[in-house]
């Protein structure tokens, strides 16, 4: 209990919120890092998954990439990239490692969503004379959207959690408060940092939960067939 009290006084000390090592700065770094990586990984994973799902090819690939991704420690990838020439390029290694980490869930969910679209609906669309791209945009994607979005949600929450590891390799973000606490042998700061990181991750998860609840029906899958 004493540690929690100390952590609380650390958190409420306004000196810890300002400046380059302050909480606000670290929070902004964390947020920017997460958003940039999420956008990049969506840009990479979603087109590939949608096209593969439309063509009905590469399912094993999508699933296997996802399994392999789980086995590779992000921390190891981060350090490996750091030691390559890429390491001199500021946040470069962190962004690459996080994007590699976020691509698998996006890819798998989007692919599974596309394949899960009722085949009879697709055949009806083909019967109506739709071209491949019309079918993709007007039929398959709207029906697959709930699963695609749930992939985005998983990726976003995991990115927030994993961006913390960047601090181990000297990167920015909220994890830095924890690693700095370890270097100073200051348990209150370590715990305070951990509380901040955990709260931030839960906040993002909660935000997605709320967004999902208030999203229009088509994004939630109310109109889903099958």
């Amino acid at each position, binding site marked *: 209990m004493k540690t929690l009290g100390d952590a609380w006084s650390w958190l409420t000390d306004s000196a810890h919120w300002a400046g380059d090592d302050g909480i606000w700065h670290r929070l902004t770094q964390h947020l920017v890092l997460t958003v940039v990586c999420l956008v990049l990984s969506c840009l990479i994973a979603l087109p590939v998954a949608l096209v593969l799902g439309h063509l009905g090819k590469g399912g094993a690939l999508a699933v296997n990439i996802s399994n392999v991704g789980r086995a590779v420690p*992000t921390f190891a990838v981060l*350090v490996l990239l750091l030691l390559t020439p890429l390491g001199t390029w500021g946040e470069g290694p962190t962004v690459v490692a996080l994007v590699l980490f976020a691509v698998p869930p996006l890819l798998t969910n989007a692919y599974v969503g596309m394949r899960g679209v009722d085949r009879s609906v697709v055949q009806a669309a083909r019967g109506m004379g739709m071209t491949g791209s019309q079918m993709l945009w007007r039929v398959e994607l709207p029906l697959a959207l709930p699963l695609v979005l749930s992939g985005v949600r998983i990726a976003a929450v995991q990115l927030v959690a994993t961006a913390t590891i960047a601090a*181990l390799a000297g990167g920015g973000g909220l994890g830095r408060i*924890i690693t700095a606490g370890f270097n100073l042998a200051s*348990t209150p700061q370590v715990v305070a940092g951990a509380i901040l990181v*955990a709260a931030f991750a839960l906040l993002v998860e909660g935000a997605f939960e709320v967004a999902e609840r208030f999203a229009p029906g088509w994004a939630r899958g109310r109109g889903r067939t099958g």
Partner: protein
Amino acid sequence: MTAPPDDCLARNEWICGEYLSTRRQILLDAVVQHLQLTSLAVLIALVVAVPLAVLARRWGWAAGPVLALTTVLYTIPSLAMFSLLLPVYGLSASLVVAGLVLYSLTLLVRNILAGLRAVPEDTRQAARGMGYGPVRLLLTVELPLALPAAMAGLRIATVSAVSLVTIGAIVGFGGLGNLIYTGMNTYFKAQVLTASVLCVVIAVAADLLLLGVQRVLTPWERATRAVRP
């Protein structure tokens, strides 16, 4: 002054046979620590998860809170989880194990519960009609039938735990993660690459081992698959 040896260690190359032979003991110790942390955490998680899932299955109202709690725990970043447990366990291996247990719980409880729920009502009724009591029903009918789903969860939990152990390096108990961490600080390429590769090898080996265990434990799965056209 003698000239420094001109081997791959001195040149700091990524792949280095010299490193493997000279640091064999360090690597071995790290692998052993990695395996111990992972297996201990997964075993404890399994021991906790099975009763939780069974309770959630038995009493429907318990399922919501159990799933919500384990999901919230899963959302907490690993670095934060290890740090939050710091006041409780101090800088120790139990800290890393406790963190990993909390992570594995989500995956295990979810999968075991899904497996239990998928047991057909007919089967349960039939067993009950044959005079099976609730305990015998659970042990000889429900749990075996839930095994494939539970094993799927166990495989995911184990593979994730192997890669999460590396974060334990922050408190000095990260198995191969320790080598990656020190290798990063000293710019020791061979050590970082070797430890990383070993991590992946352990994960893949553990996955294959569990797959084998699953095949041995569920012979009927293979039998029905062979009969189906």
